[in-house]
């Protein structure tokens, strides 16, 4: 106990270099824990983007690609699936519900998704959480739109606001559907998923936008069809981008998947969202592991800094050791003293690092949420964080035994004679 006090007083006497060492360790631990926090939360939020959907159906492509554009709105579909194929799949006896998804338009960089009103009933995210309306209701009129929480907040849209959709998915588009503006009928609650950045319209509304288009270009002059005229036309789409299926029983998943993969009229594929997420995550896992390894090495660098600081102090502290020996300290006391010193530095670094991590998190939480839609909860360290911290302290003690051993040898050789 007294040795601990001596170690602390001795450190305090060298407070400037001790403080720098503690700071280096603390910053490295902040980095490590921060990276770990973001990593696990990103993974959880990622995995929680879609739930309750048993199969994602689309044209034959990679399963990751299908997942990316149908759920994450990333990338572009390479092909479409026919509407009559969708209808046949929706009629499959084991399919409880089927949600069509049609992508391709945008508004100020937000993706526009055509779907059916059932989407708001059946789509699930997180742990089986349904979509909820913060204001208004699902689209009823042909030109109604339902906004994700971020779209409404960032663009200042309220119920009844009018917006003009643009053709294509770039953030700046030169072809706008200015003749057929949409009106906001509902705004969804925040979900922390890509839904927040999506504008939902009915498939028919999306079809109406393109009813007078020919070969990817809007009609001119007399061939143009006004918004009101379009209401009287048949607005059944000829194709959609993908579909989300819910089955009557999980057990049927593989049977239905097999049926879709063998679909006779069109090359289609069905993927299990969980499997596709896993596949996608294993791709990202490499970067994730690299990030983890880099931060572990930063912590090691911090500890090596501590080792250097203690080792370089040893020579000027030979007098201190000899005095301690002369008043009765045994070599093992000297060893313990230096080990305690290393442990104390690492412990102070760990405490400060954890504190800094939470402070940073607290400050950055709203920024991360608004910029990346990622909510990082402030929670007490879990078993993984504790074992990381424990591992760091253990590493510090192991490293600290190097100068401790040197001081031990030195004090045996120097004995009571003071050499400087």
């Amino acid at each position: 106990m007294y040795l601990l006090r001596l170690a602390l007083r001795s450190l305090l006497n060298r407070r400037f270099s001790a403080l720098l060492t503690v700071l280096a360790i603390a910053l490295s631990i902040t980095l490590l824990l921060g990276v770990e926090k973001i990593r696990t939360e990103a993974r959880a939020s990622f995995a929680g983007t879609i739930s309750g959907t048993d199969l994602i159906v689309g044209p034959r492509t990679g399963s990751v690609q299908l997942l990316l554009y149908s759920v994450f709105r990333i990338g572009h579909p390479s092909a479409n699936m026919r509407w009559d194929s969708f209808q046949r799949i929706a009629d499959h006896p084991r399919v409880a519900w089927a949600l069509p998804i049609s992508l391709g338009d945008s508004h100020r960089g937000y993706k526009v998704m055509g779907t059916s009103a059932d989407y708001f009933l059946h789509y699930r995210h997180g742990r089986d959480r349904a979509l909820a309306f913060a204001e208004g209701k699902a689209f009823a009129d042909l030109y109604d739109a339902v906004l994700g929480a971020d779209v409404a907040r960032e663009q200042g849209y309220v119920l009844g606001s009018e917006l003009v959709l643009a053709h294509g998915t770039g953030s700046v588009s030169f072809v706008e559907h200015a003749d057929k503006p949409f009106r906001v009928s509902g705004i969804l609650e925040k979900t922390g998923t890509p839904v927040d950045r999506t504008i939902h319209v009915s498939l028919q509304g999306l079809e109406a936008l393109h009813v007078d288009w020919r070969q990817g270009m809007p009609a001119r002059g007399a061939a143009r069809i006004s918004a009101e005229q379009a209401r009287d036309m048949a607005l059944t789409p000829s194709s959609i981008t993908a579909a989300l299926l819910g089955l009557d029983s999980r057990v049927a998943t593989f049977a239905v998947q097999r049926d879709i993969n063998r679909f006779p009229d069109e090359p289609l594929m069905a993927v299990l969202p969980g499997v596709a997420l896993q596949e996608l995550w294993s791709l990202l896992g490499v970067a994730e592991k690299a990030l983890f390894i880099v931060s572990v090495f930063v912590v090691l660098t911090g500890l090596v800094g501590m080792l250097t600081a203690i080792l370089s102090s040893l020579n000027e502290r030979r007098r201190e050791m000899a005095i301690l020996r002369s008043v009765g300290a045994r070599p093992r006391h000297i060893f313990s003293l230096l080990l305690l010193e290393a442990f104390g530095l690492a412990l102070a670094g760990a405490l400060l690092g954890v504190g800094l991590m939470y402070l940073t998190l607290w400050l950055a939480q709203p920024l991360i949420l608004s910029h990346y839609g990622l909510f990082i909860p402030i929670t007490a360290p879990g078993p993984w964080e504790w074992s990381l911290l424990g591992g760091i302290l253990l590493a510090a003690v192991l490293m600290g035994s190097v100068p401790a051993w040197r001081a031990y040898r030195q004090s045996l050789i120097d004995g009571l004679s003071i050499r400087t």
Partner: protein
Amino acid sequence: MSLPVIQLENLVFAWPGQSPLLDIEHFTLAAGERVFLKGPSGSGKTTLLGLLGGVQLPASGRIQLLGQDLARLSGSRRDRFRADHSGYIFQMFNLLPYLSVLENISLPCRFSALRRRRAIQRHGSVEAAARHLLAHLGLDRQELLRRAVTELSIGQQQRVAAARALIGSPELVIADEPTSALDADAREAFLNLLFVECQAAGSSLLFVSHDGALERLFDRSLSLSELNRATPDGGLD
């Protein structure tokens, strides 16, 4: 108190494979005695202090402290024996800069239960013992006690070091050039205080110095160069 505090018989010390650094036929320090040992550089002084402290062991011969043969004790027992029975005063910078004056003086009582017990027996508590010694050494002004030890003058620091060597009444006080950093007047004053306190604590004093001017103040004076039959070539001192 018939046992001599230090008894050396045919003591030889040499590093393995080298010629002896120290070879003393006979040396005794009686209980309560104050002996001046004149030891210039190269006379084997460091080696002798290492042997007396139990940090080194003789190649042959016998070294007894209070009748205990140091060679028969294990390394950690020798360390404990040193902590229990001897106090040291060095040339200068004797104190740990990060401890207060009182904490510096109490240090031996932290490592030796025996000296802690003795201090408490005589004065009630370790702190009372430290204050008592300080008062006798003329350092009892409150403001001095609160100061960092590095702000004390060298003379004051040496008196604090003397108090530390004397706390818990060890049987032996070894002073290694404690006065060489002091001026002539301060030297005698320091020595007189040291003598009085050694007597009060019942400690014998082995005073090692190259400065022969002080030897007249001691009960007995010896020259290490004459005592040491080996002729070390003055390497490490």
